[in-house]
């Protein structure tokens, strides 16, 4: 079917990188809002990543990854053009509903900037007025500005330190957009839970429908383990099969953030274990490379 070959790798910053993976069937099936589960190698864990883009002609899907934990850092090291992933399954989740919204704010922060892109593009294609709000820590971390400009009617870039665009969080951007336009039908926000929570809180007083894309821990991604369960109002839902998109005004973000910390201790252990292995490997390589090294 596919051997999950990486055909492009691009680095946006020290921590953010893009992988384009060949999977023609998936490129055909993927819709905005869906995600994949990736395994780097046989001993790896299964991690969910949002599909940031897909190219039906080239038969590829694009993932944008932030190296934050063990697996994403290891991927940063291992995934080069021409290498292969061990497993890639998807597209998972219910595609974002194509709304009939006329005017939409698409908000992306941090690792949410990439996955908001196909949504914004789809909305533009269905003739909506699209206001993009994308947030970064500083100017150096900004990426895809041109790409967004091409599909947004307005683009507001927000940086924490004001080194690019406006100074402040994406919620500042939303406030500006809302102040300028009284007829916004919908806000779509993707990013860290704390950011999405902020977005939902910002739009709540205005009663603007706000959709968020949740990113709980997952194992199978097929609705079989319940690890991804989230609280939506009074109900328990599984983000992998019932989501990942939910009404931001109903999501219990505190529950989500608490559940994301389930394995903090183990994640640190895994990272340390791996880094130790890396250092050892470096030493071995260094010994082998140094003159006289390895001749003993």
């Amino acid at each position, binding site marked *: *079917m596919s051997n999950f070959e990486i055909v492009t790798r691009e680095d946006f910053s020290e921590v953010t990188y893009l992988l384009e993976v060949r999977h023609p*069937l*998936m490129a055909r*099936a993927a819709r905005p809002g*869906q995600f994949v589960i990736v*395994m780097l190698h046989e*001993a*790896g*864990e*299964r991690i969910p990543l949002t599909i940031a883009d897909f190219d039906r002609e080239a038969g590829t899907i694009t993932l944008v990854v932030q190296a934050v934990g*063990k*697996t994403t850092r290891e991927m940063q090291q291992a995934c080069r053009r021409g290498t292969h992933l*061990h*497993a*890639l*399954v*998807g*597209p*998972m*989740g*219910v595609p974002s509903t194509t709304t009939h919204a006329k005017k939409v704010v698409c908000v992306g922060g941090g690792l949410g900037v990439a996955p908001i892109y196909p949504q914004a593009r789809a909305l533009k294609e269905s003739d909506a007025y699209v206001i993009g709000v994308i947030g970064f820590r500083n100017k150096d971390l900004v990426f895809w500005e041109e790409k967004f400009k091409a599909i947004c009617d307005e683009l507001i870039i927000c940086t924490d330190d004001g080194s690019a665009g406006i100074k402040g969080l994406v919620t500042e951007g939303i406030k500006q957009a809302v102040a300028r336009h009284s007829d916004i039908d919908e806000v779509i926000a993707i990013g860290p839970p704390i950011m999405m929570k902020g977005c939902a809180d910002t739009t709540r007083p205005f009663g603007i429908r706000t959709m968020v894309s949740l990113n709980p821990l997952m*194992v*199978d*991604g*097929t*609705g*079989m*383990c*319940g*690890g991804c*369960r989230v*609280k939506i109002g009074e109900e*328990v839902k*599984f983000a992998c*099969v*019932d989501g990942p998109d939910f009404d931001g005004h109903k999501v219990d973000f505190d*529950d989500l953030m*608490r*559940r994301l*910390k*389930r*394995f903090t201790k*183990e*994640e640190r*252990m*895994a990272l340390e*274990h*791996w880094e130790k292995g890396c250092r050892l490997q470096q030493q071995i390589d260094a010994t082998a490379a140094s003159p006289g090294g390895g001749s003993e």
Partner: protein
Amino acid sequence: MAKKKTIRTIPQERTPMLEQAAAARAKNFQEVACGYRLEDALREAERCLLCPDRPCVAGCPVGIDIPGFIEKIGRKDLRAAYDTLTDTNLLPAVCGRVCPQENQCEGVCTVGESLESVAIGRLERFVGDTAIKEGWANIPYIEPNRYRVGIVGSGPAGMACAADMAKAGCDVTVYEAFHVPGGVLRYGIPDFRLPNEVIDAEIENLKKLGVKFECNTLVGRLFTIEQMIGEMGCDAVFVGVGAGYPTGLGIPGDSLNGVLSANELLTRCNLMRAKEFPNFDTPVPLGRRVAVVGAGNTAMDAMRVCLRLGAEKVYCIYRRSRKEAPARLEEVHHAEEEGIEFNWLTNPVAVLDDGSGGVRGLRCVRMVLGEPDDSGRRRPVPIGGSEFDFECDVVVYAIGTNANPIMGQTSRLRLNKWGYIDTDDDLATSVAGVFAGGDIVTGAATVIEAMGAGRKAARSMKVYLGLRDPCLPYRVDADAGDRPFGIDRRERNFVRVRMAET
């Protein structure tokens, strides 16, 4: 000719099977029951009276010729015993280990009326294991036809259907969402009960029949059932996706960290090998004191896995009594031996918060059994004022599963009101050419029933495709009207009959 056996001449006691000692095995993941040696099997085979009634055959969901294979063990012709078994059962090494024999063949065994019943499951396992060791496989002569069959899900239902269709000459591909095939056998049932090598061997046999496996394929989302029978050119499709959507407790505190489903625990541990963390990347929540809610096979597996992961104390919380516990008897027995503390007639009412998002304990209430309910089991009712708390830091719920919503979300297959796939008696779904079976039709059941469903669906599929089915050949008992010369009407030619078996 040997003298006729009678109940008095056969070995009176059931031949014991070597097992790892409880104390040692509770700390490792090696198989608990070590299986029969040849001499054990011969002795146990001796205990079968080869009675003419053969109640065991009727007791087996797939109708294995049980006296037939046991008689061949008695003659030390293990190869012939294997052939007899695999006439009906694709996975003897698996079923010998995991079938609830006490409710099936062994439950109705004639010897069992006065002595302990013949250990049919152990004998089956012995033959299955011998076949794996010897590398036996029954690959019939297969004449390829031009039909393509797609199988969704690689659990026992899918595997059984795949095998039968491959033997009939079809080009069969199994699509599996996980990165390895096997279904519950792989991700659910732990190594100490069903080692991975056994599943691997059975899957190898399927590959020898020409069955192809495509893992990492989420049907419904990557392509739909309709696309399979349309543009992908499948002439028939079987859906055996299981029913693993876990149900929650629905009590206060059940979203706390430290509360998880047995499926999550087992998948992390078995499939993702969390027991070898951090050499494998997937972690598993380790509890010092673990409470497992439920008393089915899944609950037993979860409890025993926790013990092996190093929990100091593992409790079973079940609202009915031991008699009603749905698990295999042997598993309950093994769990007791290993030191699981059983709390029968106990129901959780709240998970207690430790103040930082984790679990401090479980609040339970004592129950009594009242009037029988719809399932015929006596309904447990709480005893007023009997609430009590006990300390634990991990709570695992193993209280049943529901149908997975993906098929319903992505296809036109008609579902019943509980979300399971609706089929007729021949396992045909509402979409022509699409059949379904296993847990996704019946709700959570057993390995052998899922396999039986896979085979039944294969039979219907062959009828649908107009393929001659060696499983339903010449019927002498048939009345002549519909079946002149004892041959089924639809069997007389190779015309594709687009109708279900009548």
